[in-house]
């Protein structure tokens, strides 16, 4: 009996939380594991030294981090993190939970806001909530080696009556996809993501933009799915799957990109961050042969380019006990110097938000295409998605499930459109955003 008692108390001792006494302030950073979060945290050592604090970085699996761990923490408010690395699409949700401090509480000018491209997108309820670190643009990746081939150009001219060049309109893109679709030669017009996961929505979103609509209007919350344009977008999506690599039906992010970089496909509608490894000669057969074109919109897209953008960045948790130190840390982590370091000193780099980083020679030496982005940003008109807490659910759950039913032919376009509209409407009603 005695022996068991001793063993039991040993177990209990081990279960007791180990107490830690520290003099220095510790700033805790919560983020996902991933290329751009790595690039941010690569600066933490230096910044902690500059600010004079200790830091700890918690990097958690990406899906779990943003979809379950941080929301649960926001509900429980246990004070795990001082800085939370989040995307703009989640700002509304965390502000609703009263989990974030507005940057206006601090000396916001210390960030040099004018140097940050599209800082205005982080605005919600009149205040800014995160400092953009990654700016990721949605567009079409296409093969420049095929596009610039004189024989192909001649044949394309013959077939379509106009010159083969970077797609400036939806119709041009469709013509090119059809033209380059040669399954017998192992080349497909495009590859799309098809796994039931958020990636599948990229193509649908892009096609909706091409038809001049937002899937759910970010201002009016109008659902543009079971409408003539919405149906047209779904129809075009099915059409593109007809010119797609068979791998599209199950492709997740990795499989989709792997097929494209293996040179099997002419194009891929995706985020520009695929350029980070599409141009890596170690893993890509098409390194150096990839062009990037922002989503072409109806009308004249050349004079007034528009784009769809995703941003991630660090935000300050309202549970922090050291707001001032946290703020100083945040300023340092998102400075130009940190941005350049994030691009140049990490394995895959980053697609930075700061204009001064996009124009920095050291950064450009690594990724010449950053210059194109820097040039394109001027006058870029950003399309957006609704800033409501539930939109993550629409994009991460409802759209993937029903779109995946459609592309496998289990539901017709009309059924899909009706079902999508009904489910999304229900979510908007439940969320109290529109009248039932």
């Amino acid at each position, binding site marked *: 009996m005695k022996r068991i008692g001793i*063993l039991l108390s040993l177990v209990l001792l081990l*279960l007791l939380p180990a107490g830690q006494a520290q003099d220095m302030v510790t700033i805790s950073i919560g983020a996902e594991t991933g290329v751009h979060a790595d690039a941010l945290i690569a600066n933490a050592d230096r910044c902690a030294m500059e600010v004079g604090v200790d830091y700890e970085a918690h990097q958690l699996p990406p899906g779990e981090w943003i979809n379950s761990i941080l929301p649960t923490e926001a509900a429980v408010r246990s004070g795990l993190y001082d800085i939370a690395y989040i995307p703009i699409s989640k700002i509304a949700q965390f502000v609703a939970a009263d989990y974030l401090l507005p940057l206006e509480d601090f000396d916001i000018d210390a960030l040099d806001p004018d140097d940050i491209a599209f800082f205005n997108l982080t605005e919600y309820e009149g205040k800014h909530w995160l400092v953009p670190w990654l700016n990721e643009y949605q567009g079409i990746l296409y093969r420049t080696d095929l596009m610039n081939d004189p024989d192909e150009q001649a044949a394309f001219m013959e077939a379509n009556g106009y010159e083969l060049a970077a797609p400036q309109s939806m119709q041009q893109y469709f013509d090119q996809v059809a033209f380059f679709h040669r399954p017998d030669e192992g080349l497909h017009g495009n590859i799309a993501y098809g796994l039931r996961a958020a990636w599948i929505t990229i193509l649908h979103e892009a096609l909706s933009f091409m038809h001049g609509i937002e899937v759910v209007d970010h201002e009016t919350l109008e659902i543009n799915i079971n409408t003539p344009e919405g149906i047209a977008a779904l129809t075009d999506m099915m059409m593109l799957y007809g010119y797609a690599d068979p791998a599209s039906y199950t492709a997740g992010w990795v499989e989709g990109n792997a097929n494209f970089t293996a040179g099997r496909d002419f194009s891929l509608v995706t985020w520009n961050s695929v350029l980070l490894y599409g141009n890596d000669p170690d893993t890509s057969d098409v390194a150096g042969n990839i062009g990037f074109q922002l989503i072409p919109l109806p009308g004249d897209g050349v004079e007034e380019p528009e784009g769809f953008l995703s941003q991630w960045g660090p935000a300050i948790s309202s549970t922090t006990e050291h707001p001032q130190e946290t703020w100083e840390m945040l300023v340092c982590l998102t400075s130009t110097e940190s941005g350049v370091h994030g691009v140049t000193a990490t394995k895959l780099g980053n697609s930075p938000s700061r204009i001064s980083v996009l124009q920095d020679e050291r950064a450009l030496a690594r990724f010449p295409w950053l210059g194109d982005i820097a040039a394109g940003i001027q006058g870029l008109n950003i399309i957006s998605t609704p800033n409501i807490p539930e939109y993550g659910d629409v994009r991460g759950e409802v759209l993937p499930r029903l779109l995946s039913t459609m592309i496998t032919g289990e539901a017709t376009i009309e059924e899909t459109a009706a079902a999508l509209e009904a489910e999304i409407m229900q979510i908007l009603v439940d969320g109290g955003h529109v009248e039932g």
Partner: protein
Amino acid sequence: MDQRMSRANRLLTYALWLFLLAVFLFPIYWLIASSFKTEGQQFAIPPVWFPAPATLENYINLFSDAKVINSVKNSLLVAGITLAAVSLLGIPAAYSMARFRVGGSLMMLVIFTARLLPPVAYIIPLFAIARGLNLYDKQGTLVLLYTFFSLPLAIWMLVGFISTIPDEIEDAAMIDGASRLGVIWHVVLPLIRPGLASITIFMLLSSWNEFALAVTLTARNARTLPVTMYTFVTNQNIAWGELAAAGVLSATPIVIAGLLVQKHLVVGLVAGSGK
């Protein structure tokens, strides 16, 4: 009983074995092969059936990653203490249930129920409870939970083993003046040693490979190997080479343990279930 098997019959048997092994172990081969592939070979089209030249890069990356080393330590600690805790709680309880029918079938039913709880359903309650009690990111929390989820099966199997021991053996020991605990320690445990081997494998398997709870309840300090492995899946990429290498490494100790107790594993489960 088949010593008189004909040569043809023997050949046929070996051919069948080879076929079975090929079918069942091919995915394992693929996992191992993936762990020796370079990034470029990983998702090549057509697939690379045999990685030549093989690279050790994935393994080197793993071993040079302090997070991996730390989580291996955590996993060992958590699995080890869980095993100890399960034994400490389970053996006396199972003994008492098998020998004196303490708790009766009602308790057996309750224990069944504990076995039914789907861990995924408990993630949010457990996170809230763990944070509320300051138990987040502590190895002890995982020990507590794994003990809870493992204990029912352990008791269940132990009851089966212990009730195979004839009362007379224990009675003899009691007459010689041994205490109840003495009997458990000196008589019961040695007799059910083969059973303990199989329970050990079962318990190790469940706490060593558990993912759903660990990913929610640990962050940096207490993170176990499966969660660290999962962080090779990032928003940009799946580092499949390293993930596969980590998978091979994490399975190795259990495979070795399984090989060591293989004889007992087979005999062991008998009593627990067949009885």
